[in-house]
């Protein structure tokens, strides 16, 4: 290549380079610019005469130029990747990146600044997109962290890579301990390769897998879970990672089991009086003779059926959150006395200790009566024949209290927290197949609806005391 040609090519390269070139004096006065820079700004070459680079910047850019860019260039001799906006002739702002070198004379005095200018429009857009993407990722990360479900990410073979707090709770294993182990260790159903064959078939086909199974916790206990495994595919469709969302469904499962048991129990409880009624009726028919005893039995069994159905209806109302009480002034002492009178028997004499003659409660007469009857029947059910039951009624200025004590079998401490839960029956109750497990649940809900509380103290072998506190009704403030 001839010298002339080379010089021309270099000149072309300088003028029409894909970046702007600009030479300025130390005070910013523009000495020379290339065509590219001129084209970007929209000004003519003449308009750059005596202009300073600062004049092309926005106000913040000018402040930055004076406070940081110029001092830094003077101290370092060069500066890299500083971001500015150019104010173009048509008013639009061109984001640019500037790299500058300071030239000095033999004494070290600055003579010229040579700068390369890059169009940073795309970069600014990427930065903006990255910023938004990062914000979104941070939001998602927060959701994953605080989620109640276990959210786990593994390599294709199941090696755990991420393990959120939900996973720590569900599996009882800390994140440092879990990461690096195989997810399958925690899932007995997927223990062996053969167990996982079907899952992998689905995942490799890009399909998620949902399954209800059991998890093995770090302490070797098991819990019911539902798991969703999501495949992440690479460019060629190959499996590159697996995400798992795991939910603890043990409570739901326990409830389902209770409901099944309850259904069986209810059928049994309902069938028993019916069988009785049918038997008595058939007996009369066969003998073709009216029997006082049979009719009494039929009436008694019908009443029992009626009570069972009432309980069931009430429980379903409570469940549907449609349980409501009527409120009127009720004399609690009278209601208690009435219930005692009805249930008084030789097998379980009931002793009443009244500290007051009358206590007014704002409540539902029928429901309050039901509460006392339920507790008295329970006391009888779980006491040996002949042992007496004590009912104590007391009140202070604001609260009425009824204590019902028996000298029965008592309640095991581990049963007490569950006593008022729906369908819950103690082992003792289950063994004797007594009732539907609704009595105390309903009692508890009625007391609550009256803004009261119910508590129990008990000692196995010596008996239990159920205590109800209810707010007193005062007609007018004194």
């Amino acid at each position, binding site marked *: 290549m001839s010298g002339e040609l080379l010089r021309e090519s270099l000149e072309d390269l300088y003028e029409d380079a894909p970046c702007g070139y600009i030479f300025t004096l*130390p*005070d*910013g006065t523009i000495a020379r610019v290339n065509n590219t820079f001129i084209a970007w700004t929209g000004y003519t070459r003449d308009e750059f005469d005596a202009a300073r680079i*600062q004049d092309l910047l*926005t*106000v*913040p*850019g*000018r*402040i*930055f*130029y*004076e*406070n*940081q860019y*110029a*001092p*830094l260039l*003077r*101290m*370092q001799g060069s*500066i*890299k*990747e*500083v*971001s*500015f906006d150019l104010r173009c002739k048509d008013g639009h702002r061109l984001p640019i990146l500037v790299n500058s070198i300071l030239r000095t004379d033999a004494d070290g005095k*600055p003579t010229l600044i040579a700068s390369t200018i890059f169009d940073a429009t795309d970069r600014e857009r*990427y*930065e903006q997109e*990255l*910023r938004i993407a*990062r914000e979104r990722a941070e939001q998602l990360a927060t959701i994953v962290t605080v989620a109640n479900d276990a959210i786990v990410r593994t390599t294709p073979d199941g090696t755990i890579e991420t393990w959120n707090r939900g996973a720590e709770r569900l599996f009882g294993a800390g994140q440092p301990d879990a990461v690096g182990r195989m997810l399958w260790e925690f899932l007995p159903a997927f223990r062996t390769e053969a167990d996982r064959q079907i899952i992998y078939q689905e995942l490799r086909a890009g399909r998620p897998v949902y399954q209800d199974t059991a998890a093995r916790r770090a302490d070797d206990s098991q819990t019911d879970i539902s798991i969703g495994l999501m495949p992440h595919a690479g460019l060629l469709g190959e499996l590159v990672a697996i995400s798992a969302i795991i939910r603890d469904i043990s409570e739901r499962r326990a409830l389902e089991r209770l409901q099944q048991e309850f259904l069986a129990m209810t059928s049994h409880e309902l069938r028993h009086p019916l069988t009785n009624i049918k038997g008595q009726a058939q007996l009369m028919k066969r003998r073709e003779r009216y029997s006082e005893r049979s009719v009494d039995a039929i009436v008694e069994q019908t009443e029992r059926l009626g009570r069972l159905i009432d309980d069931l209806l009430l429980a379903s109302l409570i469940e549907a959150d449609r349980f409501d009480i009527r409120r009127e002034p009720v004399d609690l002492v009278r209601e208690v006395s009435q219930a005692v009178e009805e249930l008084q028997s030789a097998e379980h004499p009931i002793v009443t200790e009244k500290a007051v003659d009358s206590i007014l409660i704002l409540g539902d007469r029928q429901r309050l009566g039901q509460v006392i009857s339920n507790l008295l029947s329970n006391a009888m059910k779980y006491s040996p024949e002949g042992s007496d039951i004590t009912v104590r009624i007391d009140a202070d200025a604001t609260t009425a209290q009824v204590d019902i004590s028996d000298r029965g079998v008592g309640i095991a401490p581990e049963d007490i927290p569950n006593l008022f839960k729906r369908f819950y029956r103690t082992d003792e109750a289950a063994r004797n197949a007594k009732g539907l497990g609704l009595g105390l649940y309903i009692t508890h809900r009625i007391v609550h609806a009256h803004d009261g509380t119910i508590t129990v103290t008990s000692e196995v072998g010596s008996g239990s005391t159920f205590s109800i506190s209810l707010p007193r009704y005062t007609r007018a403030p004194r």
Partner: protein
Amino acid sequence: MSVRTRNNVKVSGQGTRAMVFAHGYGCDQNMWRFVTPAFEDDYQIVLFDHVGAGRSDLTAYDRAKYSSLDGYASDIIEICAELGIEHGVFVGHSVSAMIGVLAAIRAPQCFDDLVLIGPSPRYINDDTYLGGFSEQDIRELLEFQDRNYLGWSGTLAPVIMGNADRPELADELNNSFCRTDPDIAKQFAAVTFLSDNRTDLPKLQARALVMQCSEDAIAPLQVGEYVHRELPNSEFVLLGATGHCPHLSHPDETIAAIKEFLP
């Protein structure tokens, strides 16, 4: 923590009278490197970095304390107490000119002479006062901060840099003379450009030199004249130097003006 470590205090020079140099918003004590050699024979040179700048201890940064220039003025008074400085010379650039004025008002024993390079008590214009900027300009400036985290990274700095472990990274990165922690830089910018210390000027007892550059985009001529007018005991010098940092761009002229002013 000692004041010396907190503010990265450097003491040199053969003189007995102290000359404290305070850098402005943007960079650090390195800004004085072309000026201080001229005073080393006659003065005790004291250089430091404001907390948040240069090699100051970033853990000492307290958002409440540094939410006004008073916090920075307290640091200067503490440096003087630590080094036993009395009747010294204070040289402050830009925002540090005002910080020095505040320190000298609160602790008059520290400085007898103040050199104020490109001072401005108020950057935003109001009805009767011309500071050089509108509120909109300053708001845009605060947003612009996110574009250049000097000293912290090259490409994509604002996007990728997390909040953790920044100080340790600093040494390996570009543009480190003006390195700033992004969050601190933003607050310092807000404090610098939103402060209004006009009513403090008449309270200064010490002598002062208002050093004004020609064509200073940050502290225009009217502002320098205003400062000179409001200070009870000041001299005014208009430099031929252009820009906002004459101590870097025109150190000889700056040195001469300081020497002319000092007794």
